[in-house]
Structures are given as structure tokens and as C-alpha cells.
């Protein structure tokens, strides 16, 4: 048993980073790690979200639960969330979730006095903590006036009023989707495309064109100079096998060979804005580590050493 190590050293190469989205490559590891990372990013990186709403006045058209639900879904900036406590195991406040370590209070008070419909947006939420505020979307696409930005919570007509107090707490996406910091996390295996040039030469230009066109995404193209079929964007390939089917239908199976690299993945991460996409990845790795630590340190692990065998040893080393 000893001596055989399956330890690998995964590498991450970041391709593109923006606040709300990121693309990176993950190499030298297998699907289990890649998927674990994806799952943690979606469901286990903690964020802040409104969890408790006390409604004082609500004469809007939406009922209380509806408004509470909408409030909960508003992403709040949660850089601090990793260092905060879950309100259920907060010592400072007996777990009732109303202290600075585990919760942030919001107030909202809006009343429509004019004849025009008043949009109550996430901008109207006043936070007790400047580090936890509704996410601001810097790009004002779609809205021309700057004050109109923010997420609409409810619209009020003349005389209607909404007044409430809300408490945001730390949570994870597993419990409720509102705590999920990731809009989308996906990965794909990096494709490896080989074109059999000899066979390709036997095709006429039209045949080449039809082969190129058979893929719904633009993976191949014909070099205008050499009139050769070239791979323009391997990663656009969706593993739909359309080209392979086409090649077979043309009577040239094997003209193109596509394989998925089992150990390298291309990740796309989109954040809700609660955490920056790059931070999301780091947090996810932290959470993953913590989880592994929890497994490693727990008494059961030592006891179950026989069961886990070298996995347990592996974990203790790493």
C-alpha cells in the first residue's frame, strides 16, 4: 500500500477575469475534483442574504411572503461572509441571529406620494453595515436614468406604502438558492481534435464545406489560402458528434478524430455579484479544504482508517 501515491498537482490557468465572470483551465486532475469545485461554488460558498423580514406596513399589491421572498433573492455583497458566523452557531447572540458577527440589519421604507408609479428597488434598502449592501450593477444597460438602477422589489401607486425591517444572515446555497453566489458554474472537457490530413485531401471543396458546416458551432473552417480544413475553435465543440456522424455518412469515418482530455477542464464561472468571480473560486477552494479537513480530523476518520485505507493516509498527508 505504502509508496503508491495517486497524488496529483492540479494547475489552474486563468484565462479571463472580470468581476462577475471568469474563465479558467483546470489541469492535471480528474472529473471528481472538477465537479467538486463546481458543486462547492454553487452550493457551499457562503454569502449573505436576507433571511428574516419583519413587515411593519405593506399596502402594496404583493403579499408579505412575496415581498420577503423577493428580498431574499436580492444578492448582497458578501466579501465578509467567509469570516462571519452562521447564526445557528453564533455564540455572541444566543443564536437568535441579531449581532454583528452573524447578521446585518436592513431597513426599507417607501411610500408613493405622487401620481406616478414608484419603483421600490434594492437601492431603497438601507444597510446597517456598509460592507453588506445590495449588489450594484455598474453597467446600466437597458436603463437610461441612473436612479432607476437596482432590482425592483415592488411597485407602489399613490398612497401605498411599504415599511419593513430585514435581517440578512450568512448561509449556503444548499439550504436555499438565494445564498448561492454562482449564477452559473460549468466546465467542459477540453477537446482534442485531430484531422486526418491524408483523408481530408481526398475530399472535394464542397465536401469539405459540408463537413465544416455540419457542426452547429463554428469549430472548423476552411483556410482560404490552402483550402485545408482547419480547427478554428476547438472549445466551441459541444461533443455533439455531428461532424463524426457527417464523416461517417460521407463514407470517411476517421477523417476527424475528437477526444476529450480526461484531465483538463475549462471552467466558466458567473457570479451573482455577491462575491467577485475570482474570490468565489478562492472561497470555494477554501471551503473544499475545510471539508476535507473536517473529514481528516474527525475521529471517525482515524477509526475508519482501515476502511479508507490509503485514502485516509493520503488525506492526512495532503
Amino acid at each position, binding site marked *: 500500500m505504502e509508496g503508491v501515491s495517486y497524488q496529483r498537482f492540479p494547475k489552474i490557468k486563468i484565462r479571463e477575469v472580470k468581476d462577475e465572470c471568469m474563465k479558467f483551465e483546470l489541469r492535471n486532475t480528474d472529473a*471528481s475534483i472538477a*465537479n467538486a469545485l463546481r458543486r462547492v461554488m454553487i452550493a457551499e460558498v457562503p454569502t449573505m442574504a436576507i433571511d428574516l423580514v419583519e413587515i411593519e406596513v405593506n399596502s402594496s399589491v404583493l403579499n408579505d411572503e412575496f415581498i420577503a421572498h423577493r428580498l431574499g433573492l436580492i444578492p448582497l455583497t458578501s466579501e465578509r461572509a467567509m469570516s462571519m458566523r452562521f447564526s445557528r452557531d453564533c455564540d455572541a447572540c444566543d443564536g437568535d441571529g441579531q449581532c454583528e458577527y452573524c447578521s446585518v440589519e436592513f431597513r426599507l421604507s417607501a411610500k408613493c406620494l405622487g401620481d406616478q408609479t414608484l419603483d421600490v428597488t434594492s437601492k431603497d434598502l438601507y444597510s446597517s453595515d456598509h460592507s453588506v449592501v445590495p449588489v450594484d450593477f455598474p453597467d446600466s444597460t437597458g436603463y437610461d436614468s441612473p436612479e432607476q438602477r437596482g432590482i425592483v422589489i415592488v411597485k407602489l401607486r399613490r398612497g401605498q406604502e411599504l415599511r419593513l425591517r430585514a435581517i440578512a444572515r450568512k448561509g449556503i*446555497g*444548499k439550504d*436555499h*438558492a438565494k445564498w448561492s453566489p454562482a449564477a*452559473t458554474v460549468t466546465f467542459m*472537457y477540453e477537446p482534442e481534435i485531430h484531422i486526418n490530413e491524408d483523408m481530408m485531401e481526398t475530399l472535394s471543396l464542397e465536401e469539405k464545406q459540408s463537413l465544416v458546416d455540419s457542426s*452547429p458551432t463554428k469549430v472548423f473552417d476552411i483556410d482560404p489560402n490552402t483550402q485545408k480544413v482547419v480547427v478554428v475553435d476547438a472549445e466551441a465543440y459541444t461533443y455533439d458528434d*455531428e461532424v463524426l456522424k457527417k464523416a461517417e455518412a460521407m463514407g470517411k469515418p476517421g477523417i476527424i478524430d475528437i477526444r476529450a482530455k480526461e484531465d483538463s477542464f475549462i471552467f466558466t464561472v458567473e457570479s451573482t455579484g455577491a462575491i467577485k468571480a475570482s474570490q468565489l473560486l478562492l472561497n470555494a477552494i477554501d471551503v473544499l479544504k475545510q471539508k476535507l479537513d473536517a473529514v481528516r480530523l474527525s475521529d471517525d476518520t482515524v477509526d475508519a482508517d482501515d476502511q479508507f485505507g490509503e485514502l485516509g493516509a493520503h488525506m492526512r498527508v495532503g
Partner: protein
Amino acid sequence: MAARRWSERAPVDYSELQELVEHHIESYNFMVKNGLDVMMDNIKPCRQAKISYTGRFEADVCFQYDGNPIVRQRFNFGQFPIMLKSKLCHLRGADPKKLVSLKEEAAEMGGYFILNGIERVVRCLILPKQNYPMSMSRGSFCNRDDGYTDKAVVIRCAREYTSAFTDQSSITVKLYYLRNGSARLGFWSLFLCSYSCHKALVETTDREIYQNLTCYYDGKSDKTKGAVATQLVGERAKIILDEVRDLSVFTRDDCLQHIGKHFHHVMDGLENETFINKLFSFVDGTSAPDNPDSLQNQDILLPGHIITIYLKEKLEDWLRKAKKLIQEAVSKENFDFTSLLDIKKVLDKNSPSQIGLAVENLLKTGRLVTQTGLDLQQRAGYTVQAERLNYLRFLSFFRAVHRGATFAGLRTTSVRKLLPESWGFLCPVHTPDGEPCGLLNHMTRYCRVTSFFDSQGAVKDFFNIRKSILSVLTSLGMLSALPKVVQAGPPKILSVLLDGRVVGSFPSGEVEKVVAHLRRLKVSRTSVIPDDLEVGYVPLSMGSAFPGLYLFTSPSRFIRPVRNISIPSEEGQNIELIGPFEQVFMEISCPDGGNGGRRDAFPATHEEIHPTNMLSVVANLTPWSDHNQSPRNMYQCQMAKQTMAFSLQALRFRADQKLYHLQTPQTPIVRTSTYMKYNIDEYPAGTNAIVAVLAYTGYDMEDAMILNKSSVDRGMCHGQIYQVGTSENYACIYLALHGIGAFMQLHTETIDLAEESSKNNESRRVFKRSNVNTSVHSTIDSDGLPYVGQMIHPSEPYYSTASVNDISPKPHYRKGSEPVYVDQVGVDMKNGQKVNIRFRHPRNPIIGDKFSSRHGQKGVCSQLWPDIDMPFSGVTGMRPDLIINPHAFPSRMTIAMLLESLAAKGGSLNGKFVDATPFSISVRKNNEESANSESESLVDELGNMLRSHGFNYHGVEVLYSGVYGTELTCEIFIGPVYYQRLRHMVSDKFQVRSTGTIDQVTRQPIKGRKRGGGIRFGEMERDAMLAHGAAYLLHDRLHTCSDYHIADVCSLCGSILSTSFLQPKIFVREFGGLPPARTAKKVTCHACQTSKGMETVAMPYIFRYLAAELAAMNIKMTLKVGD
């Protein structure tokens, strides 16, 4: 920007919608216009106040006595229910904006009544066609009397007043064929000799009668096409004439005397010779019997008509009674007839307000209280509650046509058959399955009902219409029926019947031209011929329908538009309204049907406007229903009506007993043209869910479906139930509180203290909170009512009442098993004694809730699956909202659902809605045949759309397992499908119990979910336990958890009944601080007078009960107790 777009939106056109219920309103309008003089009362928001929407109904009554001057007096006939949006309604003519300001729906269409706050619609009923003789054979005809055969000709005659108006009251007249060759006329239970009737009607001689009867037979054309008479008619005519000789009635006066006075009620529209000739030809088999179940021979009974008929009878009753009262008074002394006061005093005994009440009761209960029967087949079931479960359901109440309650009980299924005659009028898809299948039909989208109003809204003058039709006919060369000349019958000459009256005849060769001419006049706007005239030309045939030209102008016929292609189109208008009677004999081509096997000899003269016109509104909403197996479309029609949807826009001002409401509905990406036409977007009913078709975890087996938990978290399919009241619980409370056995009709949470106190003879009660008992203050506000927005748990107090001089108000506790929110508390401002408390039950999707696509694919949510475990697409990262099993498709063949998924995917990528109108391919093909452009298949079109966006042509995608991160071995069909949330939810249905209430007599658990009862573990369940040998479980279910009982048995006498406890009179010594020692219980047997030999035996309590019951019959049961 978005906000601006909303305000700038063009005013929505609801006219299409409004047209759908027009027949209801028009019929009521007619009734109001001509029957009544109704005074408007103030109209309040009745729905919330749980009262009826009525107006005062007054009429002038004239009295005349012995030629004295006429005395006029206005009487108040009570409150008369008003149909919404009728001419009396203050909503009439209100535009959407005004409706909204009146706290109504913007799309309010009216057509219903509000009675005690409940919306009720009068059900449209099918009746036999009026003024059309129908030949039929029924076994029951033989039993009328000796000599009757099973054959008769039946006509439902509608009454006419002064030839201008008909009030739609009718009577059915039957002409029976006797075995000796004669005929008898029968209505109600009178049977008359046909001759005497004939003679009574018109001054005529025997010779003329003979000639009339035999004129259809010319002596030789026995076997030619269209001949309807045989040589037997002569003999029959002789028999008929001979018969009368025995009765010795010869002149018209004699006949009148013979018949009595009843006849003048009936004789309208009764024309004997065609009638008798039809009977004879039917008997001889030269014409076929008419099918009373076919729409060809049917009319419709509308709300206004039934109310008119009913009202007429009630008024007649009242007048008769009034007459009697006055006559009695006159016979007494000191009664001055000219004095109004005296008359009023007398008539006070005969309360006029009962008439308004009678009509209100008819609408409230749907029951006709009448002696005569009004020539209607059923007594009850005329009105139904119009549930606002969702918009489509509500709409369907107005489009529904019922065949009649009498047919529901019949064991034969022939009435339920879908007959080709109903094509285009009744929807073949939209009928419920199960008990009312085929009896409750729905009118198609464009099916309308002829009314008393013409297109300008003026009342039709039927007399003038008929006159102008007659003049047109005469100008075409019709031989008038009067003066009478002896003429031949078919096949040479065809008679013309206008609304059942013989008006003349045409040589049979010319009729076709006449018909074509009439149709042209019908269509043209300028002519006097009404556009809804029915030109029923029954051509000559061999032993088929009795020939003739039947014209109908009457109201309450079905009509629908088709395009008349025989008219040159430069005349512009070529849409013709046709009825079911004429449709059968017309040549109408349908774009989808090719030429329908039509030969060149009979070219199509008409054309369907669109093939979807054969479907109802609801059936029209199924996308690409032409690609589905037909029963699936039927299921969808039913499920669309059970969908939880955006029920009402004026939700805030409603106090319906139960309202289902979907929180965040969406508009479907794939929709039919009907969807926009009827503004269904105002009341959307579903969600575009991303549906993946795969067998993922096994939790999607057998029509179960997996929902994505995160999608649900984010609000997919969230909803709530608004409820005012939980029914009879409240009556129970009151009974218990006041200890009075009076029946309480308090069905809802509408708490009406005035009503209560008057019933209980108590002083005025008010809502009041106790100042002493502060424990209720958390749920009850200082006014004695709950806080709005408060959550109330089961058996918490939520309002309290007290009588005025009472200091301790009594709290009232909430019944039910789940916590609810107080949504609204509405107080009647009049005296503050009537209160509506509306609760809100949250109903977010949980395991066990029912969902369905629009293709009859329903399923139950089996898991809320974590988002991270759902399969995901590598390219987009998309996870499905919903997973269904691929086995749902092969046997059900709902191809349209697959198409919808493809199309919605393409549509959402394009950012465009996709039109999914059924049969549009065939329509397009027809139009493009001339243009000669290539027509590709639908799938090809959709596939290419996906392809152009870089997606797979077939709509499949490579998905990765959410659990392992590996590629799934096969490509998964995934795309958005519009899903409906159905109203069947576990939270309303689950039933569990461990212990709880038991039956007092048997000590077994009670049944019923509401009372916390159990589900019966019945014989078959018992059998299953036995088969498994699960003895312990069986014992647990049937004994331990049921009526487990330990009985004392006297082993000496074996009785379990004679044992009883002896109350030990032993002095209980108390030891300091210790509880008193438990004295051993002493049981003795009364019979044996000893406490020896007592044994305890465990048994079902029901066994002891059996022993007691047997003892009551003097049978002793003994148990032998051994070891």
C-alpha cells in the same frame, strides 16, 4: 423604458372575448327589454357583501271589472336578479378603464348573476329544434293507447305574440301513427284525432283534406328518387275521414267544440298536411327518421329564455290568484272596485314580491318550481356556480352547452356520441371524460347563437323579416300556399316552410337556384334578408330525410361563419353565417381535409375560414394540437381548467370562498394565435420550465417528475390559496357557543353578527377584545378582529365577539390543520357587524403536487432535487428545472410537446414568440400552392432555427452528471416547455393520524380528513396482510390502533356485560407526602353476585358492542375463558 412601454401600450381589445359570452347577455337583454319594466336599484359591490345583485322589479297592473274604467296600479314585484353587463347593469358599456375604477376586472365580460355573493351562470341547454317536424320511432309511443305504433312525428312549437316576438315558450306536439293507418295528435296528455284538428284550424272541406293528404302521391312515381308518398296514402286518408264520421263532427265549430279550449295554445306553426305526409312517408320508409341527438335538429335554451318563461308562469299564477282574491272581495260587501286602496288591501294577501324571489331562487338553486313543466325536460340543474379557478375555467362556463340532465341518467351511450352534424358548432375535443362525457359540450370558437338583436343592436322585427323573405321568395316564382290549390308533392314540387309554416312551393328543379340566390342576399349587407337566416334545403333523395326547403329566422339557433366561395369576391363580403340544419346539405371544404372525397359533380360552394374553427377556445390554446394523439388534447382541455393561474386582477376586492393564485406566472413562448386574440396574457397560467427528458434517478418513473430545488427556491410555481371561510366548522362553533339548535347557514368566514343575534334572540353583538384575558392580545387587535398579515396557527383565537352589555368577549378559535396568514379583513361599513376575514394559505411546490404540460402529460413531483445534483450542460451550464421520464412519450404520442420544446428553445434564442397554431401548415400549403414556393416540414424549420444558434438540430444536448461530473452516455432532449401547476396539492389532501378522535359507539377511528380521521384499512388490505403472513402488522392495524379494549369477563357465567366496577368505599389513608395508594379495583358480576373468577380479556371494543346488541335481542353471549 420598460415602464413607459406599459403605459403606452395600446388599449387592449377585449371585444373578441366579449363576443364569447354574448349569447348569455343578449338573451337576458331581450327578456328585460320586452318582458319587463325593471327599475334600477342602487348597486353595491355585492360579491364582498355576500348579497345578491338585484334591482327592483315593478309593473303596472290593470284591473277591469264589468266594463268599469281601467284601474292602474304599480306593484313592486320584489328584487329581480340582474345579469352583469346586461342592459340593466351599471357596468354595461363600461370600458376597461372604467371597469377597473369600479373595482372590476378590466376584461370583465359579464353574463352571470351574483347571488349571495356567489357568481352563478345559467347553463345553456340543448332543446329540440323549434318549429321543425321530426320523425322518430320510440317504443314508448306504443303504450299511449291501443292501436298506437312506435312511430310519430314530433314538433316543438314556439309561441308567437302578434307575429313579431316570440317569448320562446313552447309546447311539444306529437302526431302518432295508428296501426289502422290513421293518425292522432297528442300534446300534454291529450290525444286528438288529426282530422278534427285539421278541420278546426282552417275552414275546409273533406274533399280538400283528402286532396291535401293525397297530393304527394301522383299514382306512378313510386320508386323514383325523391318520391315520398306511396299509394297507401289514399286509403289512409279515407280511414281518417271515416273515423270522424263516427264522432259526428263535421263543421269547424263542431271540431272546435270537440277539441275543447286547449288548442289555441298550441296551434301556431302547425301545418297538418306536411306533418301528416311526413309521418306517412316515414311509416312507409320513403323517408328516414330524424335523429333527435344530432345537432341538426337542435336549438339552444338561453338564460334569458328560461327566465322569461319562468317569470311568465309566475306572473300568470299571481294574476290568477289576484283575480280570485278580488272576485272573493267583490262578492263580499263594501268593496269599491274603483278605489285603489281597497284593491291594494286585498292584494296584500298575495304578496307580489314573491315573484322576484322565485326568480332569484331559480338562479340560486337552479331548480324550477313549476306545475306545468314549461315543456322542459328537467327540474333542476339550470344554474351552476361560475368558479374563478382560472380564466379558462370561468370562460368555459359560458361556452358550455349541456344536453340535459335527463340524458345523464340514461344507460345508452348514443346521446353522448360525437356526430358529424356538430362539426364546427361543438368542439370535438373539449368535453370532459367520465360521467358527463359527450353530454357537456363546448361551443367552438366562432359558434354564436342567433338572438333577438340584429347587428346594430336593435330588436329584430320578425314579422317584417318574414314578410320581406316572402316577397323575395314570391319574386323568385314561389307558388304561395294561400289561396289553396291542389298541387303535387315531391319529387315534382317542394314546399317551402318558413319557421315551420308552409308558405308556398317551388318546382323541385328550381330550388337550388333559389337557395343560391337567398344565400347571396344573406351575405350582402344591403338586402333585407337577415344574415343569420337558415336556408335548410333538404334535397330529394331515396329514403333519406323528408325533402323540402326549410327557412328559419328564429332566435336561439346555433350559427357559425364560413366563407362563401360561390359568390364572386369583389362583392367584398363573403362570410356567411350558417346553421347546423343547413350545414348538413352544404358543400364546405376545409383546408386540412383535401377535397374530403367530394366528387366533381358536387363542387365546394363554401370554405372553412380556418380549420381551428372547429375547436373551442380552450382546445385552441394547445400548441400544435394537430400533432398530438387526440385523447391527449382532451386531457389538456380538462387540465387547463384545473390549473392554478393568475386568477383575478381585482383580487383585492374579492371575497370568493376559495381562490387559487399563482405568484409568478409567465406567458408561453410557444403559443397559438388564439392566445393573443383572447388576451389570455391577462391571466397567464403557467411557467416556461426547462424540461429535460431523461431517466435520471428513478424518481421520475411512472409520470413522476423531479423539480429542481433551486428553481423552486427562486420562485418557480409558487402560489397561494385565498380562502374566505372553512365551511361548516363555524356553524359548529356557534351551535356550541349559544347552545341553540337552530340551523345556521353560516358557511363562510363572513361573520355576520346581525344575522346571528337575530337568530339567537340575543342583544346586539359586536366585535370586541377582552381586556382581562391578555393572552389573546397577540392575535386579536383591539377591535376584536385579527391583525392583517398575522400568521394564525391552528386552534389559536383570531377574533372575539361579545354582546353589547357583556364584559367578557368570547374568543373564536381557528379550525384546520395548517397555519394561515390573515390576508384581509373587510368590515361592512353599515353597522360594523359583518366582517369578511380572508386567509392566505401558502402553497409553494412540495413533493406530491401535480403539474402538467399543455399536452395532457401530467405528473406528480416526486423530489425537490438539489441543483448541484442535476445534470448540467457543459456549454451553457444550464440545469433543468424539471426532469420527466422518456417513457411518457412513446405510448402517448404527444409529439407536439417535443415540438414545443424545440420551438421554445429556438424562440428563446431568437427572442421571439413562436406561433404554434394547429393546421397552419395545411393552410399555408393551400395558400402557397399558387405561389409555388417550397414548403418544408415543421420539424425542419425548428431544427434549422436551433442550428443557426449553434444548437443541435434535434434539440438534444450533451449533459454532464451533476453528481459525478462525467458526460452522460447519451444526448439529452432538453428545452423549455410551458408547464401548468394543477390545483391538486398534497397539502389539501394528505391524511395521517396515529391517534385521534374515535367514534363514540364503536370506539373505532372516524373517517374524514377534515375531522382528523383515518383511512380505512379495508378487507382487501387485510387480505394483502394475510397473504404476506404479516400477522403482527395486521394485529396492530386492526386492533391495537383501532378499538383495543380490555374487558372484564366473568368466567362463571361467561358474560362480559354483567361485570362492573365496584366503587371501593375504603378509607384512603394518606401517608405524609406520598400519593394515595392505588386501591385494587374491584370488579363484580351482577349476575353471579360475586367478584370471584373475574378475568381480563383484550378484545376489540366492537365485540362488546355486539354482545350488547345481542342482549337487546334477548340473546346471551357467553365466553368460555380458559388458559
